[in-house]
């Protein structure tokens, strides 16, 4: 019975998928809201089941895993709500989108809890496949979308690399189990084959995280996809992949990690630099914030280098505050609309502050928070990151992060200039009230965290340790 109750959240999500499919099959008069409603109830039920089971089982599950699961659920719910605005706008069919993200949720929470290398890799690659399918959602079937196609091909190659790495470790250690593989690695940490297999698994994970130099698919593919898809992919799966990385390195690969660390350090620096430089070269706001996300990942990786619990905590806090700001930015993208078209060119939002001052103020707030500007909540992340780097005497990385922040500031100042200082040359459509509600909620969370971060961070620190 207890074993069954462990699976209740997954059962709820599975049932939701079944209900959505049945509804799409049997019922003709479906609106975009139909599938949103079904998905919403399913996800809420699964989240409630997760929390209830966690406490009823005497907190048997790893609190760290639970934390990441809850965050992924909450981000998904927010994303589902805001995405509905896009589908309702032109009365587009929403079945495929909601079906795929609920299925993705199922895979993500399984990935986060995985304690078996094969299961982890299969779910991870399943997630990549769903990412590809999501990217093609609601696109014109007659158009080529070269960036998405390129992502599909490259993803296949990295999936092969990851699976080959898992197979390699299995053939060496004779097991897929985290504990058994870790025990094997402790003894055979110097072997080249072990190192190669671990590197292959890690590379495939870094690819899905979008770490440079494996990021090249990201900006193009995310900007070609529809807004709900790029918003979802930019934020929601990130926490699950972060948890995977933590589990994998600290739970399995720690014995060989010292050999891998220099490469991770290089990837971190590359991500910071490429994210910051790339953002400056972009005139497409969606691409600009994709680079911003790469920068954030770079900073997180810089902090995570030791994979200690303190590093995990620091990386998590920075990721959380950055994603809160990015969620706000993506929400505002839904309001960048003129004559029914979503705007993505930077010049299209010139003079936004004139006609939509609250939206412009929200973008300003979120961007300054992303920069770690005091006294906004991003500063909290920045303090923790810088303090951690100084603590480790990683002054080279500290300088890289500072350089990156300055470059990011230059990119954001450009956005501020366009919104506030330039004259507007087009009108903006009326903004849906729901968008303001989400923005307000985001601002309230940011302000609440800002005013009283102690309790929350204390709890988070305890869970991560």
């Amino acid at each position: 019975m207890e074993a069954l109750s462990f699976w209740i959240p997954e059962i709820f999500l599975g049932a939701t998928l079944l209900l959505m499919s049945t509804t799409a099959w049997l019922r003709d008069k479906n609106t975009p809201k139909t599938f949103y409603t079904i998905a919403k109830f399913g996800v809420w039920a699964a989240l409630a089941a997760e929390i209830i089971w966690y406490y009823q089982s005497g907190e048997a599950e790893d609190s760290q895993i639970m934390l990441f699961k809850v965050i992924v659920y909450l981000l998904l719910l927010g994303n589902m709500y805001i995405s509905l605005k896009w589908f309702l706008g032109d009365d587009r069919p929403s079945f495929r989108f909601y079906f795929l993200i609920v299925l993705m949720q199922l895979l993500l929470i399984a990935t986060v809890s995985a304690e078996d290398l094969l299961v982890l890799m299969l779910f991870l690659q399943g997630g990549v496949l769903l990412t590809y399918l999501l990217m093609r959602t609601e696109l014109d079937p007659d158009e080529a979308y070269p960036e998405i196609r390129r992502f599909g091909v490259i993803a296949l190659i990295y999936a092969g690399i990851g699976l080959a790495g898992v197979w390699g470790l299995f053939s060496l250690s004779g097991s897929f189990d985290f504990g058994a593989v870790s025990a094997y690695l402790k003894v055979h940490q110097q072997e080249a084959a072990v190192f190669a297999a671990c590197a292959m698994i890690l590379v495939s994970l870094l690819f899905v995280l979008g770490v440079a130099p494996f990021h090249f698919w990201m900006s193009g593919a995310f900007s070609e996809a529809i807004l709900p898809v790029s918003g979802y992919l930019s934020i929601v799966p990130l926490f699950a992949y972060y948890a995977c990385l933590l589990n994998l390195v600290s739970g399995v690969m720690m014995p060989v990690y010292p050999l891998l660390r220099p490469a991770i350090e290089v990837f971190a620096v590359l991500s910071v630099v490429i994210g910051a430089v790339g953002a400056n070269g972009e005139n497409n706001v969606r691409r600009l914030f994709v680079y911003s996300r790469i920068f954030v990942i770079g900073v997180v990786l810089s902090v995570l280098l030791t994979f200690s619990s303190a590093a995990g905590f620091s990386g998590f806090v920075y990721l959380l505050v950055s994603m809160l700001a990015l969620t706000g930015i993506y929400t505002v993208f839904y309001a960048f609309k003129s004559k029914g078209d979503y705007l993505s060119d930077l010049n299209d939002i010139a003079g936004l502050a004139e006609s939509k001052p609250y939206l412009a103020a929200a973008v300003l707030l979120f961007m300054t928070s992303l920069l770690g500007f005091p006294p906004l909540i991003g500063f909290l992340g920045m303090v923790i990151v810088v303090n951690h780097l100084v603590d480790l005497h990683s002054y080279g990385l500290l300088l890289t992060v500072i350089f990156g922040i300055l470059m990011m500031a230059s990119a954001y100042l450009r956005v501020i200039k366009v919104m506030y200082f330039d004259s507007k040359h087009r009108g903006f459509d009326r903004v849906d009230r729901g968008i303001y509600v989400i923005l307000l909620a985001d601002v309230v969370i940011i302000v609440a965290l800002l005013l009283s971060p102690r309790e929350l961070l204390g709890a988070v620190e305890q869970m991560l340790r």
Partner: protein
Amino acid sequence: MQPVIPYLLFIVLLPLFGILFVAAAKDNEKTGGRNALKVAVLAVIANLLLIVRAFTQISLEYGKIQLVEKYQWLDSPEISLVFGVDCFSLLLMLGIHLAVLIGLWGVKDEAQGQKSRMIFTLLFLCLISGFLTAVDIFSFFIFFEAMLLPLYMLVGMFGEVRRQGTLFRFTLYNLLGSMLLFAAIVVIYNHQGRSIYLNAISRVELGQLSEVLVWSSIFAAFVSRIPIWPFHYWISSVSARIRNPLVFIIANIIPLTGVYGFMRFWPKTMPDVMVFLVVVLEVVSVLTMLFIALIAIINKDIQYKIFSFMTVYYIFYLLGAFLPTDQILLNVGFAIFAFLLIFAALEVMLSYMGSGRHPEISAEGCLQLMPRLSAVFTFMVLAGIGMPLSSMFVNNFVIMSGLLNYNPVTAFVALGALVLVSAALLSDLYQRKKEDVMLREEDQIADISAGEAVFMWGVAVVLVLSFVNPLWFVKG
């Protein structure tokens, strides 16, 4: 122990509440932005009253931090907002609030964008108040960096320099300074295991390399705020081109944050490695003073002359800050208080001339046709160059004496620069040089109104009172 009434918290937060009211104020073509302006003025006056009240609660000494309030923010790393003041920081706060109030007077007739202007002005006041009341390193940094945002917005939106890449570079340059300070502070924090008060920094014993890096970062951070050669270009190219009096005043308060930072951070007993930096700063400072004063003589732009006037004085006060006695530092405070009022009044009056009320004319010689403005303008210029009309007179004299004792060469060059920049300020407005640009009697330039004259003479009265007794408002 926390004071019963958290005056300092109120002083920091009151402008924020003002922002909420300004945001809610009705602002359309009919009101012409007057509602937003009134709310902002009210918030500034209320804060002024609080500041004066805080003055009555403290003993009037430099460096004795009082009314300390502590608000815990984070446990790990342990960060608190710690506020506290001494006579010096309260004086600067008072001066800045009065200068901004004068600046608000200068933009009272501007309707466009008034709401945004007031919001960012109040945000700036909130942050600069926080900066001047911060007594521990993290609180200090938070406000030091945060004030860059309203500055960028104000200059970009209303300063008319927005199409130049210089504003970008100016902001990034300042941000770089802030980041260096942040890194230095985190290193100190890590070394001590806790946040410390500003006046305890000089007692932190770091390793030699760390000491050089930390103090160099702090040095660079504060220099980045002051237009000192070779970094003066970005600051001067932005600050000198601002045409809005309020924004000009706010932008030119920023160098004061650098001077203040040096005064609060810099140790009286210098680590050996830092002596070199101080010598470099001294040489570069006097050369910059001379250089800027000479340019002010040549330059025809009256705005640039005001900017030069301010810069030369800021550097003069910076030199005063390195003198080894606390008494002189208090003199610096008294002088800066009067100086802030004088430059704010001059700037507002300039907006009545060339670039403001009479865009069609050059400022050259125009005072001859504006008797009311001429009188009060002359008063301010004379007070500014150190005549016995404000607290600048005695206190500049004391600082100069201190400099003469310390290093006569530095003192003489500084004195020369002060004379030159004063001459630059005085010359063009009265001098008839070229017939073709000279103003004629029939040009019919409207003088300032009686109300505006009364306001400006009110500022002059405050200056005279500060000459009689720099803390007249406390002791009656």
